């Protein structure tokens, strides 16, 4: 009999099960993605998954860790999928593969592997890529798109023609407003009248993917994989700054709902901000952490130079986690009124 201490009962829970549920929760979003923007995303999902597992395997081998145990935990696959979903689906294959390898090798394994990384690996991959390849990272597909032409673009067999790609709705809005400058010749309403790019409230097509992420995220809350704190606080933080500006000047500032259903907001709220390893852990800390990210996301989106702000906002708050956790320790049993 091995050295064995109480409790002798264990709940049926595992890291693998947690990660599997996260992957399952992403499926509705992926389905909507494929439906609206073609199968390109599936190619990237496959590429990043293979790259992540390879990178993880090599690093585990180098670090002398058991392969089956850590490859089987599926955490690398979650990172891979988040990268695929955060990147433009028509990005060249080498970009997502390199970004994934960077995420796994540098942002995760070099810090000590599962549980040890201070930064969200997928967001590191995104940040590195958008700084290094801003042009490619800003080319997003329009709706439709068939498998073969998307495949050819991804693997560099066909030129990246303008008809195939376009800016994201967030980017389009920002660029149009910027071009108009102080002349007030363009209003949010006017710009949003373009049905090719904009949908009912968010981006054309993108809003449905956002809703699918929302559905998956709510299921994660119901499954107790994540708590309500972070998504709620993220939405609140983003709304808290978007709403007053929109009410004050609706011609220049898009509605909070537009912001919530555009870009990486919903993916971020339920799948990225909620990464347990790199996020705050106390209930109050979670609220501060996610609300801060929501706020910062808006600021970077609207006033910054990048098409979306989720990645940088997340990374900036990742580094604040120890501080947030330290100052938000909940009182222990019996010490509430002290």
């Amino acid at each position, binding site marked *: 009999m091995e050295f064995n201490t109480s409790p002798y009962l264990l709940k049926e829970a595992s890291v693998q099960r947690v990660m599997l549920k996260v992957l399952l929760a992403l499926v509705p979003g992926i389905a909507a993605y494929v439906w609206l923007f073609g199968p390109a995303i599936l190619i990237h999902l496959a590429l990043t998954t293979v790259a992540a597992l390879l990178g993880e395997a090599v690093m585990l081998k180098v670090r002398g860790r058991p392969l089956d145990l850590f490859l089987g935990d599926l955490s690398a696959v979650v990172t891979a999928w988040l990268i695929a979903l955060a990147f433009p689906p028509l990005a060249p294959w080498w970009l997502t593969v390199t970004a994934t390898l960077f995420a796994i090798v540098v942002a995760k394994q070099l810090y000590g592997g599962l549980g040890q990384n201070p930064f969200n690996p997928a967001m590191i991959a995104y940040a590195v890529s958008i700084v290094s390849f801003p042009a490619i990272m800003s080319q997003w597909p329009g709706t439709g798109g068939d498998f073969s032409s998307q495949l050819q673009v991804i693997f560099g067999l066909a030129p990246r023609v303008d008809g195939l790609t376009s800016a994201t709705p967030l980017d389009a809005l920002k660029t149009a407003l910027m071009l108009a400058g102080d002349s007030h010749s363009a209003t949010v309403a006017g710009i949003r009248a373009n049905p090719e790019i904009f949908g009912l409230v968010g981006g054309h097509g993108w809003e449905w993917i956002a809703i699918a992420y929302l559905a998956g995220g709510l299921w994660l809350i119901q499954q107790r994989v994540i708590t309500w704190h972070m998504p709620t606080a993220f939405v609140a933080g983003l709304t808290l700054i978007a709403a007053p500006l929109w009410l004050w000047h609706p011609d220049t500032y898009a509605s909070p709902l537009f912001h919530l259903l555009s870009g990486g907001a919903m993916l971020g709220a339920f799948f990225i901000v909620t990464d*347990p390893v790199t996020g705050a852990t106390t209930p109050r800390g979670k609220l501060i952490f996610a609300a801060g990210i929501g706020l910062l996301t808006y600021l970077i989106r609207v006033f910054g130079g990048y098409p979306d702000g989720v990645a940088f906002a997340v990374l900036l708050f990742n580094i604040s986690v120890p501080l947030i956790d330290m100052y938000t320790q909940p009182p222990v049993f019996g010490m509430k009124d002290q």
Partner: protein
Amino acid sequence: MLQLFKFKGGVKPATNKVQSVTLPIATAPIPSRLAVPLHQSIGGTPRPLVTIGDKVLKGQKIGEADGWISAAVHAPTSGTVIEVGLYPAAHPSGLTAAAVVIEPDGEDRWIDRQPVNYAELKPEAVRELLREAGVVGLGGAVFPTHGKLTASKTVPMEEMVINGAECEPYITCDDLLMRERAEEVVRGAGIFRDLLRPKKVLIGIEDNKPEAVAAMTAAVKALGDAFKEFEVIAVPTRYPAGGAKQLIRVLTGKEVPASKRSTDLGVQCFNVATAYTAWRAIAHGEPVISRLVTVTGNVSEPRNWEVLIGTPMDELLRIGQPKPDTDGIIMGGPMMGFLVPDHAAPVVKATNCLIAHSPTLFPPKPPEMPCIRCGECARACPHELQPFEMYWFSRAKNFGKTQEYAIFDCIECGCCSYVCPSHIPLVQYFRFSKSEIWAREREKQAAEGAKNRFEFKQLREEREKSEKAEKLAKAAAAQAAKKAAEAAAAAAAPAEAQSAAGEVAPAPNATVDAEKEAKRATIEAAMARAKALREAAQPKNVDHLPAAVEKEIADIDARHARILGATDTPPPDAEKNS
């Protein structure tokens, strides 16, 4: 109906209680030999009263309580003492402990039992009786019960909680006790009530024991008006609802912090089995020599036995007919118990359950993965701690930080380990940290003691030196005075013609010596005064203190014992109904 409160956290493992409640309580046969450990409660280790070859009777005191927080131990049956020495202990360490080994004579002859009517006794006398009868908390913490039967002087006693929750899976001894001996449990609680005088007595039982709830309710009702402040309450089944602090929280809404006694909040908690033994001790004159033990797990006949203290665990388990693949014995429940290293270890007052362990019943734990900070442990922690942070610092051996995160508030209930998706044995890390901290504390105390002794020695040597010098000076002064006197006498004799001028020289010298003498006398007097003061400040006699002061000293001793005690020693009022 009483309004119930909730405690945060907790888990709901499969209870596995049904197996052992189908059969009534049975009396286990007297084993071939009984090894009765002397130290069976928190506090001082009782002094053995018997030696090899002594004949003892059932219920005869064989260990004298040492200090106020301690409890006597008794011979569980009549027979011969064949050994007084070290014996395998019912402890996860596998260490030995002092025990009295008795060979039963099979006659099971009682001492002359002296039932008393406690209503005629002073409260101190009742407490003393309980101490002499070895009544201790049978929920698992084995804190001497008489030590909990004094109400706070400043806070009025509001509620007394009687703990029949029995939240740990597999264990059913309290359940069966309440079903079959409800009246005696209630009467025992009545003794505690009369000593503490609370406004309400709340008997909390988890709602998965409807038979026990019914039996207790009926008993309270049958006992009538004298027990009108008693109420039996079914509480939601959620581990660890039977933890003293959790049950107090559920029934009264009060949260007893680790730094306080529950009496400071006007509440006190006792286990049902403790109440039962108190009644047997007072009303029947029977000391605690047996207890109910659930024998369950991988056995063919799971049931509850009335077992003599000191019965070897393997012998008891054999009665339950363990299945062939049994590979260990868990003492206590699966959440807080431990695998007994030596199966010959005796059943003690803390033994509420023996579970036959098998790999099918308790599969080997999956490999430990890194912590992903998911916070499940924090959500499960009934004391609202942050186990993953404490784990982090325990791993880093940063013990100061573990204390900042309130590691000593941890009751080691096991909820965090139970829910951890990375299968980290969190509780084990906390036990490690706690014992390291205790060990360091002990070392520090030892070092301080050594330093004090050294400094005292130095002081003493210096004092002796100065005393010696003083003595010498005194002798010299006396000598000089004598000489001066002689000289003066000589000078005063005019008949003797002393013409030399130099001869009168001693006279001024004598004056100087006298001055010195006077000065020294003043100094000596001052020193004597200081010494007297010092002596007056020191305590002179600790034998004839008033009871209150004695109690205070005992409390301090108990706290020390707790700090210095074994790793699995819960705080005094954490009578855990595991």
